[in-house]
């Protein structure tokens, strides 16, 4: 079967590569210099909650209520967050898997839920004042 390939096609593929590289670069810049330790949950564009990632082996589960009986079960681990289960029709959020770096997001479009990983940019915790 003859597969036609013309010069313009190359342009398209280069464009795709640029977009992909740009996305990785963008994600890297968003997360550079910070450690992933918190997750924000937005429903319908409004910030509902921010959760700290648990430390060690602990796992936490949060039920995101998207209204009208719709939900997403958010699982938080020390390495990242993922949607364990949801009752949305396309299940993209569940299939997506875990997000681990600041800047990454999980989106559930039918439920209008956006889960974003954010990190702190502070290198060290501020020193406590020592009362003299």
């Amino acid at each position, binding site marked *: 079967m003859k597969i036609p390939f013309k010069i313009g*096609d190359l342009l398209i593929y280069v464009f795709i590569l640029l977009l992909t590289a740009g996305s990785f670069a963008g994600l890297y810049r968003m997360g550079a210099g910070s450690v992933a330790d918190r997750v924000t949950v937005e429903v319908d564009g409004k910030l509902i909650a921010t959760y700290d990632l648990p430390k060690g082996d602990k796992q936490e589960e949060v039920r995101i209520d998207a209204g009208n009986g719709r939900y997403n079960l958010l699982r938080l681990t020390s390495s990242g967050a993922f949607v364990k289960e949801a009752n949305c029709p396309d299940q993209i959020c569940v299939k997506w898997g875990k997000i681990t770096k600041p800047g990454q997001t999980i989106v559930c479009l039918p439920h209008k839920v956006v889960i974003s990983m954010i990190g702190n940019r502070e290198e060290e915790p501020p020193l406590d004042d020592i009362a003299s």
Partner: protein
Amino acid sequence: MALLISQALVLHYLESFIPSLAPGAKLGLANILSLVALSLFGFREAMTIVVIRSILGPILAGSPTGILYSLAGGVLSCIVMAVLYHHFRRYFSLLGISVAGAVFHNIGQILTASLLYGSIGILFTYLPILMLSSVVTGNFIGLVSKHIIGFLNHRTFYEQIG
């Protein structure tokens, strides 16, 4: 025309039952009709099909929230494919045009989601895998379209529509 529109709708609807391998990566079967219409009829007809399909399709499939994304992606994709097809056909193969269409369809959709939720992180997170799926599905859709166009071109117009 109505035949093409209904075919596009049916494909869109049926496709919603196919589980996707990668998150958000659909086969985009209805785009076969867009490309065929573009080739056989022209931009206006193709755009009409895309708009109607984008509005009615998500309603039929049971998720009306999808209308906005379908429209954004579909319209952008149609414009890009039309420009490539009518002005630059010398340089692009039909498969390539299909891939470009798939790419911009996905860009349109994910850009809409990012703008709607004010998070550029959405764009960055989902773009790479969508680009990969655009290449795969674009080539597949292009191949199917190519064969359909070739087949239809060999028969008289009235045989097809009548």
